[in-house]
Each structure stands twice: as structure tokens, then as C-alpha cells.
């Protein structure tokens, strides 16, 4: 970290100027994105965390037990209780009251409520596992693959 800071002292070097522009671009872009959020249909949705395509959920069914409006359904592949053993994960989003109980209970920190765009009118409001995966690393790969093509 200290090495990074040394660059700031040399204001007029071309490297530092490029880096500064990069930072400013990032901050401006984030503001632009926030504005977009307000316009589109974004909701607080319980999403499943994943890393490189492997879902952290182990299908222990605690979130479905705790949910007060009983809108979560979980099916498991095996009894192994390891990451990636979830087969199907459905949320009836019309009856979700966004109470954060599933996030509090989850022992693997697999569920988190995120402010994301959702097609509420698809399938009468039932969200399947494909809509709910939150995988930041996988998106980068897909972008990279598209660039290569």
C-alpha cells in the first residue's frame, strides 16, 4: 500500500496522471450507475452468493424453516452438506416481505439481500435459481470471452 502512495507525490508523471484519470472515471461511473438504479425496476432480493459458478449454499433448508411468509423452496442433490449441493431454489417474490431473516440465519453466509433488477412478472413472480445467482467473477469471464470472439 505504501508503494502505491508514493506515486501520488509525483503529480506530473504520466503514470500518475493516467492513474488519477482511472480513479475519477471509476467514481463518476459509480454515480452514473446509481442514477440508473433509481430508474429501473430494482428490488431488495435474497440472492445466492457464488464463486466461479460454485454456489455457496449447502441446501440445509434453514432459511425455508425460518421464512415467515414461507416463500422459499429448497431441493438438495445429496446429503453431503457441502457447497454446490443445491438442486433447485425457488422464491415466490410476490409474498416476500424482505425481513432479512434468511440472511441472519444462514450458517454459510450464502444468502444476502441485494438491490438488483428482477423480472417480477415472469412466471407469476416465482424466481428460479438461474435468476438468483450473484457471481461477480463469472460475469468478468463472460465479458472476456465475448471480447475474444
Amino acid at each position, binding site marked *: 500500500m505504501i508503494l502505491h502512495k508514493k506515486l501520488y507525490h509525483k503529480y506530473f508523471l504520466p503514470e500518475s496522471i493516467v492513474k488519477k484519470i482511472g480513479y475519477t472515471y471509476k467514481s463518476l461511473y459509480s454515480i452514473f450507475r446509481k442514477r440508473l438504479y433509481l430508474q429501473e425496476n430494482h428490488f431488495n432480493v435474497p440472492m445466492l452468493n457464488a464463486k466461479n459458478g460454485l454456489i455457496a449454499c449447502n441446501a440445509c433448508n434453514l432459511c425455508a424453516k425460518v421464512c415467515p411468509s414461507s416463500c422459499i423452496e429448497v431441493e438438495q442433490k445429496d446429503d453431503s452438506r457441502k457447497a454446490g449441493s443445491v438442486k433447485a431454489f425457488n422464491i415466490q417474490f410476490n409474498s416476500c416481505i424482505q425481513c432479512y431473516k434468511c440472511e441472519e440465519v444462514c*450458517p454459510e453466509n450464502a444468502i444476502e439481500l441485494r438491490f438488483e433488477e428482477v423480472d417480477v412478472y415472469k412466471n407469476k413472480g416465482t424466481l428460479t435459481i438461474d435468476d438468483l445467482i450473484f457471481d461477480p467473477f463469472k460475469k468478468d469471464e463472460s465479458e472476456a470471452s465475448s471480447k475474444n470472439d
Partner: protein
Amino acid sequence: MSVVDIEKNFNVFFNKNQTIKIAVDSKNVIEVLEKLKNEYNFIQLIDLFCVDDNNGSERFRVIYRLLNLENHYRLEVQIKVQTDETLPSVKNVFKNAAVYENEVFDLYGVNFKEKYYRFFTGNKINGFPMRKDFEVKNNINSSGRIDWQEPEPQRHTTVFDRETRSWGDWSVQNSEFKGSSLFKIESEGEIVYRLRFIPGHAHKGLEKILENSTYHQSISLIERLNLNSSLSNSLAWVKAVEELCEIELSDRSIALRMIFSEISRIYSHLCSLSDFCISAGLTSLIAPRRELKKTIEELVFAFNNHRGVMSVAQIGGFLNDIGPQWITQCLEVLKEVLNFQNLLEQACTRDSEWMSRIDTSKVDSNFAIQWGYTGAILRSCGVSYDIRKVRPYYFYSDLDFDVPLGINGGIYDRYLVKMEEVRQSVRIISQILDNIPNGPIMNKDYSFNKNDYADKMDFYNFINNGIQAPRREIYSFVEGDNGELGFSIFSNGSDRPSRVKIRSPYFPIVYSLEYLVDSITFNQLDDLLQSFAFSTSEIER
């Protein structure tokens, strides 16, 4: 038990810290209740409800909950009722009994000698939904409607009046009256003569849902009873469950609970007061009100990272521990609260036009007690009854605070009492913040470390099996934001309660409005409703 037995055993009733139960035959009800009211000063009927035991011929129990305001005694009168029996109505003894009896008739099908109609369900449901053997299939009409019959004209009116006055709909659409509601009013031009509340538009059947959900699940359902006071609602429910299961709390969690229940009192009082002032024409308060709401929500957000409804309650303790800078943030928020209060005072308290407009429909203290008023609204009529003083729970007995009282029971008194209560709760919070005790937040049996493997298996079992409550019947009550908020829980030894009755403070008050409205203008009617700050989801549950 009959009247003679009560005279013999009356010394048993002199017990301040317990609610005493007596069983009475259904024939003697009116005699016994009149005796208790007139000779032993049990003036107020706090609650009346029914329980379905589902065994044999004597299936239902109707329970009357009485309060002696002078000596703070509480009494529970139980009657066993057969399925085909018709009960005598206690309408003439207690004024608010008719409304409760109507609810019992609607949801359980217990017959009374008075004529009642189905005000929650109407034609929508065949059969009685709160009975244990009710089946949802084939019993619900989606095209059903709620009945309403136009009442007879008043006696003192002339023929000319009867032709010109007409009944019409009037619904309030502002932020304070949450949920859908309908009033029928009799009016002529700009003057309102009579008013009647039509329930059934926000009835969710919450008590039926609570029977089918575990004690953990029901926390976040009860938060949504009244969105302005979600903190104190959930804390009251958690307290009731802890009394049921006899769970001990650590000192630190109790102190934090007191802080948050007072914060919710400040939040709900100030929001309702400022909305009331804005509707009276002071539009300059809109921006500061929005800022105050945001700062208090951020204070809770710094604590639990939840957006939307504020929730902190957990059975056996508290959700999180406070962070290092939370106390300084809290003190800054309290400063802003006092600044906002000064703004309100400068704008309204000495405004003569506003005072003259408000000066209508005063509530008698006798009327208020008869109709089951509680909380700040009862205190504005001059009755000093605060549960925090009278039967102190948690650490309220160690604190210094005053109970403000009104004189006339009008809208202006309600405003002044609420303003003073905000100041008192700021005083309470600052006293607690000075000496918060150290220690754990959760009880040992209910705290789990998720990262530890041995604890993790216990956590799985705990959530899967739920809390196994013992077979008991309790009533726990707190001084909520709007009045006495009570939960009577009947458990049968499993992880779900067999019956829950929510004693919501606003339920009887709405029906008493019929007798308060007498030839006032529409603006004055709006002020009257705003000063009570109802929420329909709490009334109809």
C-alpha cells in the same frame, strides 16, 4: 363461581403482581361483572376474546380481562360455552364490550342475545375461520362483500333534516392512516353529523397465521402491525415469549431494549405530530420531518444493516452489540430531535388560529375509561396510568422520569402530552446511555457461534425444532407507543402457540368516534383523526 363466592374469597384478589383467574357460570356473568365493577372498582374492560379448545361439548372459552385503575389489580374472568349456547351480552355494563362481542361472533360463531353482523368477513367466508376445524377449501367466495346497513335517523331531527342529510363514503388517504380504511359519514354541506367506521378492508387473519408459525417466524410478522412503531411491537412480542418460556436476560440486553423502545416512542410520536401539523396547514415542516425520519432510520441501520422496517428483537437477547461510535451518533440524533421539537413549538404551540380550530370534541375521562382508552390518549384526559410507573418492567423503576397529564382531553391536550412524553423519553435514554452495563447480549442457551463446528450442529437442531414452550397460559403487556400493547399466548407444549390474542390499543377507540363527532366541519374531522394517529393494520389484525 357466583356472587357469594366472590365475597368470601375477595382477599385473594388483593395481589398486585399477579393476574388472578376466576371461572364463572355463563348464567351469572352479568351479575358478577356488575358486582366487580360497582363494588370492587374493576372499571375498565381491557380485552374480551374467545379460545377454541376443540374437546367435547364445552368447547369454547370466553375470557373477560378487567382492570382496577385505582389499586392496579388485574382480573381474568373465564366462561365455558357450549356450541349451541347463547350468551348474555355485557353491553350495558361495559360500553366497549359490544365491539369485542361482535368480533367473537364473527370469527368463532358464538351466539349472543344481541344482534350482531359479520363485520370482518361479510359474505366472503362460509363458516367461522378461527375455529380449529375450519377448512379453507370451498369456503371462500372471492365475489363476497361486507354488509352495511344504514342506521336509523336520530330522534331529535326534524323531517326537513332527514331529507337534506345523506350518508356517503369518506376514506382518509394520508401517510398516517396506514392501510385501507372506510368511513361512512352523514353530512349536509360542509358539516358532519355522524360517523361510522367500517372494518374488514385490512383484515389479514394475523392471529390465525400466528397459530401456524413458530415463535421465531412471528417476530417479523408482528413488526408489520404498525409501521411507525415496529421496534416496540416486536420487543413486546419477544418479551411475551420470554415470559412464557421463563428465559433470563442479561443486563446489557435489557438496557439496549429500553433504549430502542424509547427511540420508537420518539419516532412514532414525532411523526404523527408533524403529520398532524402539516395537515393543519404548516407546510414548512415537510422538509425537516423528512430529515428527522432519515436520521433515526440511519441510527437503526448502523446497528443492524436492514433497510425498510426497523427490526432488532431476538428471543433470548438482542440482535447485535452496539458499535464503538454508536453512542455518540445516538446523542447527536437526540440533539436533532430536540431541535425539531423546538421548531414544532415555535410554529404551533402558541398559534391562536390553530388553537381555535382544534378546540372541538373533547373526551371525558369517564368516557375514555369506559371505552378502554389506554396510553397517552388516556393520560391526556387526566387519568394518570402509566404501566412503566405502576407495574415497572425491566429497569424502569430505577429511572427518573415524569408522567405528563392533560386536563380537557381535547386535541390540543393530546398534542401537549405527546410533546412532553418525547422530552421524557429523551431523558430516559440519556440516563441509560450514561451507565450501560457490560456483559454478553444473548442468553447462553440461545447464542450460537456460526463459525464453530460444534455450535453449528446445535444451531441446526435449534432452528429445525424451534423453541419448545411449556404448556401454559400467560398475558404479558407493555406500555407501547399508542397504549397498552398486550399478547395473551396459549401454548400446548409444542413449538407453535395454540392461540394468540393481540390486544391492540386502537381497536376500541375507533368505534368510540361515533359518540365524539357532533356537527363539526370536514377540516375539524381530519384534525380529530390525525390526532389519534390510527393504523388500520393494527386495528383489524
